[in-house]
């Protein structure tokens, strides 16, 4: 089974040289720490940064330089800063090659819900709806089940949607899966996790074809 760091490391394996990548809040943010040495990617932050770097050294924080999670960050050489309309032009205009974000629920047709629990939690969608509406390559990073142990991979979402038929890949603590033809297709098992455990934790339609390899995580 993977912890949050493990999920981030596995997602980092999906990165390709020359990509611009938008990382959401939470587990996705950790992906930036595990970019393979032999490739170059630039991180886009929806609040107006391209070429976002790591956290600043202690004492060098700048209140004017934060990421979408309001954390202090730095700029890499070659970075640029811009306004919110330009930022979302990059996102909706499909100039960003990969979006990684968290979710409360994902449906077998690629629907995603991650912004609202009616009557309980209403934080807002932020940039998530713009991101999922346009990106061609969307990876969801999340735990396979919620705190009550219920599956987050469902036949259909019960919570208000963030976007429809948009998620292409999911990396959880248990598995790597692809969404196509209205089903979750099992690609890899997390270390030490059996296909049976993944089946038991997946409420939506799960397709298991042939031998499912175990992930290789450094």
């Amino acid at each position, binding site marked *: 089974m993977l912890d949050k760091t493990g999920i981030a490391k596995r997602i980092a394996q999906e990165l390709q040289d020359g990509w611009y990548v938008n990382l959401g809040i939470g587990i996705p943010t950790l992906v930036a720490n595990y970019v393979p040495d032999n490739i170059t990617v630039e991180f886009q932050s929806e609040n107006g940064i391209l070429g976002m770097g790591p956290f600043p050294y202690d004492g060098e924080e700048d*209140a004017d330089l934060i990421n979408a999670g309001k954390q202090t960050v730095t700029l890499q050489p070659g970075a640029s800063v811009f306004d919110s309309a330009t930022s979302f032009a990059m996102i909706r205009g499909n100039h960003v090659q990969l979006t990684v974000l968290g979710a409360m629920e994902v449906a077998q047709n690629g629907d995603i819900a991650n912004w609202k629990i009616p009557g309980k939690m209403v934080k807002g969608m932020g940039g998530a709806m713009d991101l999922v509406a346009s990106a061609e390559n969307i990876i969801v990073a999340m735990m396979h089940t919620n705190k009550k142990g219920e599956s987050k991979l469902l036949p259909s979402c019960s919570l208000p949607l963030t976007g429809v038929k948009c998620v292409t890949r999911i990396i959880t603590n248990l598995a790597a899966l692809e969404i196509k033809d209205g089903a979750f297709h099992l690609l890899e098992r997390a270390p030490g996790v059996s296909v049976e455990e993944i089946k038991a934790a997946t409420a939506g339609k799960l397709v298991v074809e042939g031998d499912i390899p175990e992930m290789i995580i450094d």
Partner: protein
Amino acid sequence: MAINKVVANATEATEGIKDGMTLMLGGFGLCGIPENCISEMVKMNVKGLTCISNNAGVDDFGLGLLLQKKQIKKMISSYVGENDEFERQMLSGELEVDLIPQGSLAERCRAGGAGIPAFFTPAGYGTEVAEGKEVRDFNGKPHILESALTADFAIVKAWKGDTAGNLVFKAAARNFNPMMAMAGKITIAEVEELVPEGDLDPNFIHTPGIFVQRIFQGVDYEKRIEQRTVRQKG
């Protein structure tokens, strides 16, 4: 000589802001917010405001200060997760809230300032956000019609500005400020450093002075950091 937009301070700048008005306020989280004007409006005690702002501050800073005093009737935002008082007022029904996708919010402000009454966007299709909105297919993909936003006053914060109202923003503090500056019937700019006309290089102006009606040099910027994240040397 350029047209002079300078006012003395936040008190002069906010003159004419009245109960029930619609305001735009720049900033992302607490980054790039007009601290001076927000404090001034707390003092003025204007009420029944509709505030268009990406976020709603935190409990004791930014727009949270206006929320604490129940001066805001309605918020139009994309993300309000850092503010407990906001969530309480919203869930209890005291506060009207219109949550809209962040990119749509930015573009609706830009459109309002640019004379574009509405536009189609893919963001929000198939969600609650699309309810009651026209849907049309372009290139085989569904889009929803979003309308422009304008405001009685737009209140923005810049790093540097000149007497002509030209503005330069710093790093990620730019965010919504340039679009909102365009969309205000009256736009107030508070800046950290106000310089004479001619001092700013025209090639590096982010917001041209035509969009700004009043400008002043702010005082005592706190520039609070919401999430101080650092790494250690070595």
